[in-house]
């Protein structure tokens, strides 16, 4: 029997995409990078729904192309170290002494240009992988799967995110209306004020209306939890998060004292998790039609994780395959392991069922 169209847990898609992005971060081999981009596009085309955000892949592809172009342009403009064949010998423009170390134009070496291309592709591949996740899973739905203790913060983020399109809309409307005023000579002085006052007033009105609506619909019912307990759990969560931040900073800073590394990180993590857990005990909120984290979700996530794991392994086994030489320029070659790693993301297509399209939904309704 064919599997029914169904949506896969959004977290699974994000794990998959992050896996591919990690794989892309491990290599500068252009063929592997193009393979990774190809894999993510292929999966998106087969598995995306027809919601507005599903159409966003094009934007990320364009962004990727722009990154590559800018990287290469800078290599041409600023010259840079390199060797090998000189492609074009442009005259170098001397700069005054305060800009020592920077020189404009100059000879363009093939290796320098190739480095720019590989670098750009490296970044573009990561952007496209994350863009793929965005088109496959609504970022707002992702927020719905946060643990119960973070539910309030999740709602705040959702509301904040939806403010931006509204602000853009009211800004456009106000600008259009202001052009109708004929007293243009005096209004040029007030240009900022003329747009900001009505837009902010509008935003304030809207947020008050939203707050009243949410209050009337039961948002923030704390049931039996006392205000003292709420204060305690809130403090625990915040102190925990600060601890995690300090610890994470210490982990990457090699000169940080030992005590500011793992101990702070772990203590912060424990405190934060405890705060979230304790505050979710008293909460009584249910979820409407949650996506289950089932076998297909595990399969999807595994595809991305496998891709990342194999590529990380390949950095040990076959480092030369992942970073092809540009001086002298050689045709990038690689063995079976990186190839398998790059293609492992395709498992997601096998693991996941077809997406639900609203057209098919209407046909069955």
């Amino acid at each position, binding site marked *: 029997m064919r599997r029914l169209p169904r949506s896969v847990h959004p977290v699974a898609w994000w794990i998959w995409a992050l896996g591919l992005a990690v794989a892309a971060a491990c290599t500068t081999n252009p063929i592997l990078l193009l393979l990774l981009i190809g894999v993510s596009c292929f999966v998106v085309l087969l598995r995306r729904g027809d*919601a*507005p955000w599903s159409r966003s892949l094009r934007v990320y592809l364009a962004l990727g192309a722009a990154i590559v172009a800018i990287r290469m342009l800078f290599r041409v403009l600023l010259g840079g170290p390199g060797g090998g064949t000189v492609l074009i010998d442009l005259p170098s423009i001397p700069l005054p002494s305060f800009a020592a170390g920077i020189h404009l134009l100059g000879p363009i070496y093939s290796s320098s240009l190739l480095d720019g291309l590989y670098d750009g592709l490296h970044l573009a591949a990561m952007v496209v992988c994350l863009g793929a996740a965005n088109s496959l899973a609504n970022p*707002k739905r992702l927020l719905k799967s946060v643990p119960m203790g973070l539910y309030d913060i999740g*709602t705040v983020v*959702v*509301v904040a995110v*939806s403010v931006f*399109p509204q602000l853009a809309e009211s800004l456009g*409307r*106000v600008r*259009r*209306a*202001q*052009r*109708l*005023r*004929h*007293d*243009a000579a*005096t*209004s040029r002085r*007030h240009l900022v*004020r*003329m*747009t900001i*006052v*009505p837009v902010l*007033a509008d935003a304030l*009105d*809207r947020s008050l*209306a*939203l*707050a*009243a*609506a*949410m*209050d*009337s*619909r*039961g*948002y*923030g*019912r704390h049931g039996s939890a006392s205000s003292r307990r709420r204060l305690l759990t809130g403090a625990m969560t915040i102190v925990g998060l600060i601890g995690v931040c300090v610890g994470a900073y210490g982990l990457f800073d090699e000169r940080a004292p030992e005590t500011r590394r793992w101990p702070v990180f772990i203590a912060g993590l424990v405190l934060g998790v405890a705060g979230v857990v304790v505050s979710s005990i008293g909460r*009584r*909120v*249910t*979820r*409407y*039609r*949650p996506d289950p984290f089932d076998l297909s979700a595990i399969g999807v996530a595994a595809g991305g994780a496998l891709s990342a794991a194999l590529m990380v392994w390949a950095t040990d086994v076959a480092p030369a395959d992942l970073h092809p030489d540009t001086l002298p320029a050689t045709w990038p070659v690689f063995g079976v392991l990186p190839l398998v790693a790059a293609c492992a993301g395709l498992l997601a297509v096998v693991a996941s069922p077809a997406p639900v399209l*609203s057209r098919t*939904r*209407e046909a069955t*309704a």
Partner: protein
Amino acid sequence: MIDLQRLGVRYADDGPATLADVDLHIEEGELALLVGGTGVGKSTLLGTINGLVPHFTGGRLSGRVTVGGYDTRTHPPREMADVVGRVGQDPLAGFVTDTVEDEIAYGMEQLAVPPATMRKRVEEVLDLLGIAELRARPLAALSGGQQQRVAIAAALASAPSVLVLDEPTSALDPGAAEDVLAAITRLVHDLGTTVVMAEHRLERAVQYADSVIVLPGGGAVRAGDPATMMIDSPVAPPVIQLGRLAGWAPLPLSVRDARRAARPLRDSLTAPTTTRRAPGDVVLQARGVTVRYGDRVAVRQVDVDLHAGSVTALMGRNGSGKSSLQWALQGSGPRAAGSVRVDGIETASQRGLVGLVPQTASDLLYLESVDAECAAAGPQARDILDALAPGIDGAQHPRDLSEGQRLALVLAVQLSAGPRVVLLDEPTRGLDYRAKAALVEQLDSLAAQGHAVLVATHDVEFVAQAADRVVVLAEGEVIADGPTAEVIASSPIFAPQVAKILAPQPFLTVDQVARAMPDSVAR
């Protein structure tokens, strides 16, 4: 079900009381309609029912409000959510999620309804309000009427025993408003929900009400049977005004009842004398105006002439191209083809030939006081404002003005440039009967001064009083253009209540009837 005992509300300690000494009891399963002008405390009264007043708005509340056994003194709105559902004026502003299904489920999620029950209830309310086919659609892509029905569905899904609606149809076109009111009456009949509703469109709503709560102003409240309460209510739809004029008892509330009572009146009336203004010469001449947004054609080769000294109404459903046409006529909106000339000058090339009051009129205002706005607009602005709406305090902040006063202010700002053509986009939105009557007078005086006026509106009663000529748009094309009486009286949708009651006699407004009435019938 709902008990208000000696309720008083005041927002400032030294200010006047918004509500004073209100004793009110609303039975279970009743549809209670709040009637009153703007600013008499309708929203405040509605807010006290689920505790938004004073928990959310601030202010001082005296007396006692109990709903379904809960006292709002000890229960803030979120704890009342399972008893009282609330629907506001602008549905889009109250939406928390982004698809229809999620929005309906949101309230139940907060109340911790078990997932299986939640699933079942979502399907039930989707069917109850006839929006099942919209379930997966993004909320922002729905029409106003659909959004308001989703908002009602979302409030109903938590199965509250009381539903509070604050002017649910004020932002909708007549068809959508009809849908929403039909949905509300079905709830009262099928579910036994107690509904308390404030509503401007009394002509549609009053016939369904079980009781009417009149707020005459000054904080007092009277309640009772609709037919008795409407006799001296401060605001009344045309059907009631006609009933009062003819002295019908009991007062008919629906067009159907009024038609039966009107038989003797119909026979005694002679055809109305035409008091129409004679149109002057053509001021604005538009030929082949086309507006397109990408592939969508909003206005398709429209020809319009506007005459000096006349008021033209522009009608049509939402999305039929009314706003696009007005912006194109003004000259600052996009126009793909065609020409618009005022006295031979192309409007796109010169500002100030045409004044436009946009749909959200307050977008034009940005200063702290009425005087500052007038000073910025020009030397005559204050005089024009005083002529349009006398007695506005110059030190007031424009946002504190009433809907109608703010409209007059924007109109004055636009008129101070001395345009011969004035366009108004949906000015009647959110106006009560008194403000609408004031607007009719303002437009009359503009026409008397020789302006050409074009008003886009959904409000047929307003058109019957204000307009000399009606242009109807559908899908961006002009489908009717002629004198008001001919265009609207013959249409089943656009006919005003008086025309429906007195057909085949060609009356449109209560004023016309009053003038034509023989004295013997009048008293």
